[in-house]
């Protein structure tokens, strides 16, 4: 009983969000880390995925939920393509304006048009019960374990594909564009195709993550769940974890999800009777301090730190 409860907590409140954020972070890392296009529209693209999955699965209840997630990703990818077009003309920090426009417009749209929520009086979308191979994975009766396994499977697959993508021709053309776009153009990388491909594939990942976010994690959502704060959160993960690293996406997500929960639980563990408000304030300060600390120690992200640790451990305990 005790173990079951504790396990539930870790699955539902920690591991499932960690996996889903990792998925979104991989998506953003492909765009920002590999192709060098800054995006602050992650929340918006995730919302597209979430709402698309909801519309699809309520319109076609017989459709396998994994297929629904994939289709939701495709729809998000199409939307991402549209908002990626200005990247041909606008670069760097300035490009943020296009993705910010996407973020605010999409949230406004889903909030405004009742069709997206099937005219629900509550204005929210809810994950209906769906099964995969006879096991309930979404809806109120799906166990945390089932949802965890589903999220794990999807993110493993996503990471594997992403890893192969960035090692191949596409990944190299992205990096060429990122490092010197004009030079890349001269050696025959077509900027339009390359950039749009980055926007499309990145938004696909974000869309799938958004669908998972509603179906596997939250269970029901309003547009506020996808606000600009989510876009920033995923961007933090990518930078902290390491730009241009798939592993870094996981490490960044772990840092942003796990560290606050760790900090919240410390006073409990030490039996410190601090008022909750003070706890939260200290938590924020320590969290901010840790971000700065890790950047100073290793500006290239946790992925780089991990690599160093691995090398050190390989030699340890005989460093020479």
């Amino acid at each position, binding site marked *: 009983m005790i173990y079951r409860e504790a396990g539930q907590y870790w699955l539902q409140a920690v591991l499932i969000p960690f996996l889903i954020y990792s998925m979104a972070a991989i998506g953003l890392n492909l765009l920002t880390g590999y192709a060098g296009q800054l995006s602050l529209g992650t929340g918006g693209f995730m919302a597209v995925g979430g709402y698309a999955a909801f519309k699809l699965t309520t319109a076609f209840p017989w459709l396998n939920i994994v297929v629904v997630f994939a289709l939701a990703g495709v729809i998000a990818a199409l939307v991402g393509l549209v908002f990626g077009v*200005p990247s041909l*003309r*606008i*670069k760097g*920090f*300035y490009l*943020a*304006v*296009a993705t*910010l*426009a996407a973020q*605010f*417009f999409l949230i*406004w749209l889903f909030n*405004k048009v009742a069709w997206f929520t099937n005219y629900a009086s509550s204005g929210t979308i809810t994950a209906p019960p769906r099964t995969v191979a006879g096991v309930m994975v979404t809806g109120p009766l799906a166990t945390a374990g089932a949802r965890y396994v589903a999220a794990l499977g999807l993110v493993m697959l996503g990471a594997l594909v992403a890893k192969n993508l960035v090692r191949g021709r596409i990944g190299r053309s992205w990096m060429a564009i990122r490092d*010197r*776009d*004009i*030079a890349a153009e*001269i050696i025959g990388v077509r900027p339009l195709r390359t950039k749009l491909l980055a926007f499309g594939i990145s938004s696909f990942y974000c869309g799938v993550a958004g669908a998972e976010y509603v179906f596997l994690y939250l269970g029901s959502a309003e547009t506020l769940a996808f606000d*600009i704060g989510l876009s*920033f959160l995923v961007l*933090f993960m990518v*930078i*902290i974890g390491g*730009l241009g690293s798939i592993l870094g996406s996981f490490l960044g997500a772990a840092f942003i999800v796990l560290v606050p929960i760790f900090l919240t639980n410390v006073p409990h563990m030490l039996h410190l009777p601090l008022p909750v*408000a*003070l706890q*939260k*304030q*200290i*938590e*924020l*300060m320590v*969290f*901010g*301090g*840790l*971000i*700065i600390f890790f*950047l*100073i120690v290793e*500006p290239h992200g946790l992925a780089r730190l991990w690599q160093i640790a691995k090398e050190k451990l390989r030699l340890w305990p005989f460093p020479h």
Partner: protein
Amino acid sequence: MTEILYGVFVGPFRDMAGSPAFLVEVLLGGVATGLMYSLVALGFVLIFKASGVFNFAQGVMVLFAALTLVGLMERGVPVAVALVMTMAVMVGLAFLIERVVLRPLVNQEAIILFMATIGLNFFLEGFGEMVWGANVKKLDVGIPDRSFIVAGVQINQLEMSAAATAAVLVAILAVFFQRTRIGRALRAVADDHEAALSIGIPLKTIWLIVWSVAGLVAIVAGIMWGAKSGVQFSLSLVALKALPVLILGGFTSVPGAIVGGLIVGVGEKLGEVYWGPLVGGAIENWFAYVIALVFLLFRPQGLFGERIIERV
């Protein structure tokens, strides 16, 4: 179909012509709001200009400045003294930031410095609230938030004062950059870090100065916004409204922040009041970015940003 076309292309203009006094009110409202955005955007510009850092914590600095000022006033410190003390706190904060955050990260990429300011953002959020509490505090700047009517046009005293403040602040900053020794040094650093260093301009001092000035601008922004909504945690979110202004104006230009603010302010008010009702309203947030986006498609470096020269 014709109805839609009429609603978009004819109706709003007919409304404008039908009630010119109201149109003037909307325009004035846009100008006043736009300048309020500019006040926040200025803080970003100063820091970006001199150090290439996009300071994510600027919004929280606005909050922190206002909280400090009001907190001191609540404890019975006279306004003038409280203001001086707040200025001292902001300069002290700039000193600490330079020492603890920026110096160890010198020569790192812009995105890394950006992330460091995110850490700073979290830290200040927690710290400010721990010291001053989370309640709404009234900030009375001595200017009544009342309106009077001139030729059928309603004018708000507080907003006009805010607009005047912004104008004065920009004038001071312009003089500071153009006429003083430090200002010239700042511009030199902005143009080329290494060249500036090589002729003996100390980067550390420059950073301390810009962060201090940005802190002082944050006080002004905090007072003006705090007078509108009371001083509370949400003040840190005004940064979001300054973002389109900043991008439109071009990150590095003080006049750009002002002109950008005016365009965004007036544009979003006109859009919301005349076109918003067609689609159910609340379009301002994304409309501001669409305005900025349209301008950027013609000038990718922002209105007043430095021209991007690309070489291979």
